[in-house]
């Protein structure tokens, strides 16, 4: 690694700015972050996901997620040819539905698929940070809430661990932390995004299938993307105001 003196003169100030964010501490102290300037969301591009599981591992590392529980996970769907040709069979038998697997949440990737027929796709899932979230609605004490910048968070010092929010989430993204005995879930890496970094899962994704998006930022590429692509949210019939948008989401995804 050869860094010339000139490069150091140019790069050091840039490094200083980057580190000001990393070392800053709290959003109030970080002078460049105003909650009202942001409305966070995420974009997931299904055709790009290769099911490598990097995101699941990165999230676990970044957020100390206990084994067996998942703040994010990846599902692999396989809709075989004969299922596509016989939709009524799929409907009448709930066990012969699109074959979905998520071995350990996809943390170590997926076993090699050998059946060349039908179609496969990977669906990374996480908390949808719903604008009208049913989980914050049911919390008896106000321990879970949506922040002014659009991130649904859990106040782990206030949570009773009643698990009502876990029951109320239609997407299964919450769990009770086995040691802390409070509700836990994806925080959209709040400690990172308030300092100008991206989430751990987006950072680790090798194909760009996951992208953090700021709906309030006029320069964010999501605005153009939403205009030019067919984009859905999970379980739209629940009217949760989910803010994780999926490009090319198949109708069989549950």
């Amino acid at each position, binding site marked *: 690694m050869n860094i010339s003196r000139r490069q150091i003169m140019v790069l050091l100030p840039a490094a200083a700015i980057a580190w000001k964010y990393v070392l800053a501490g709290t959003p109030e102290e970080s002078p460049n972050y105003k909650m009202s300037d942001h409305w966070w969301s995420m974009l997931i591009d299904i055709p790009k996901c290769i099911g490598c599981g990097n995101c699941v591992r990165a999230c676990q590392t970044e957020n100390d997620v206990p084994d067996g*529980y*998942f703040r994010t*996970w990846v*599902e692999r769907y396989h809709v075989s040819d004969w299922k596509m040709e016989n939709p009524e069979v799929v*409907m*009448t*038998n*709930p*066990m012969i*539905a*699109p*074959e*979905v*697997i*998520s071995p*350990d*949440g996809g943390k170590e990737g997926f076993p090699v698929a050998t059946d060349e027929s039908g179609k496969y796709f990977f669906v990374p*899932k996480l908390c949808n940070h719903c604008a009208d979230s*049913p989980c914050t*609605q*049911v*919390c*008896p*004490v*106000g*321990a879970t809430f949506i922040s002014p910048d659009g991130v649904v968070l859990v106040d782990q010092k*206030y*949570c*009773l*661990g*009643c*698990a*009502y929010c*876990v*029951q*109320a*989430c*239609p*997407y*299964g*993204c*919450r*769990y*009770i932390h086995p040691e*802390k*005995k*409070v509700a836990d879930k994806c925080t959209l890496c709040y400690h990172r995004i308030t300092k100008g970094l991206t989430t751990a899962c987006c950072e680790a994704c090798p194909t760009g299938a996951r992208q953090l998006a700021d709906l309030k930022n006029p320069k964010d590429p999501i605005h153009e993307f939403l205009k030019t692509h067919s984009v859905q949210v999970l379980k739209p019939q*629940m009217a949760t105001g989910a803010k994780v948008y999926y490009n090319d989401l198949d109708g069989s995804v*549950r």
Partner: protein
Amino acid sequence: MNGVEGFMYPNEVGLQWSVLIVLYPFITGLVAGAFILASLVRIFRVEAIEPTYRLALLTALAFLLVAPLPLQLHLGHPERSPEMYFTPHSTSAMAMFGYVYLWYLMAVLVLEIWLDYRREIVLWSQSSKGLLRLVYKVMTLGSSNISERSLTIDNRVGWIVTLIGIPSAFLLHGYVGFIFGSIKANPWWSSPLMPVVFIFSAMVSGIAGVMLLYMAITKLRKLKIDVHCVDSIAMYLFYIFIIDFSLEMLDLIHRIYEADESFRSLNFMVHTQLYFSHIVVQICLGTLTPIVLLGITQVVKLPEIVRKRIYAVAGGLTLIGIFAMRWNVVIGGQLFSKSFLGYTTYKMSLVTREGLLVAVFLTILPLFFLWALVKLLPPWPVKTLPEAAAGD
């Protein structure tokens, strides 16, 4: 994954709400039902049931005092539960229930019992000795006024309290139903019928419970059971059970007819995972059998001894059936995946904080409370009731 059939979201595999959360609506249901029985006497003047009036109130109190315990044992941080009273979230049915519980306990049940017993409490505070005397004295709130007029006022106020108590009892258990019924994420729970079904099944369980307790306690006291009383209770039990069963059948028929996305998955679950607890225990043993048995007593004139036996069996089966109903709602609602693509199993532990032993203990505990209450405030005329002492 152990115990998982098909696909479940990774975080869904372990159940969140255990048998303790099954016990909690069962206990609050008994409270509401027992109170409704008492209100039949006080408001609707069903004289025949009068022998169980005070017992019903004490039963309601005994069970209401135990009701928060399964919840406390389930919480990850029970020491933070006062937060529900200090910062209740107004959109949360659970938080609002905390206040409904408190209202029902203090402004309805305790007040009504106090007003009904006040005369005896004052007399006992003058006639008993030692610690018991102190307890009664505290319960008099320092007032020894048991003049005719004060007792008439007590009666009037008590009547109003009971009147308010009826919708309060509905609110108490209706809210529990709403805690489940308002969860759109869970199609097994989400239904506007849920609070209504809970209320009527609560009445059924409470009435059956008080009837059984009355019969058992009377037998223990080696006295004769007032057959006219249990006949009347059984009649109300029968008709309210019909309503309860109709509501549950309405829910079932509606689901089968509309057959929405969740139906296939739930139907499969009821026929496999939940077959024993739902079809066999709840419906056949716990609902149809008691209804038929009670129906027979309403239509055919049977000898007293046979009727009493039938009431006891029907009452017991009813309680089992209503418990099974709570089980099927709470546990059943967590056995299927919200993706409708898989199922898990409930592994009930034995000796942990939320295990079977604790559940059994919490079911028996109200009977101990009831025993203590019956000793403190006997619900039947005491043989040696002292006259008001002149200056004590």
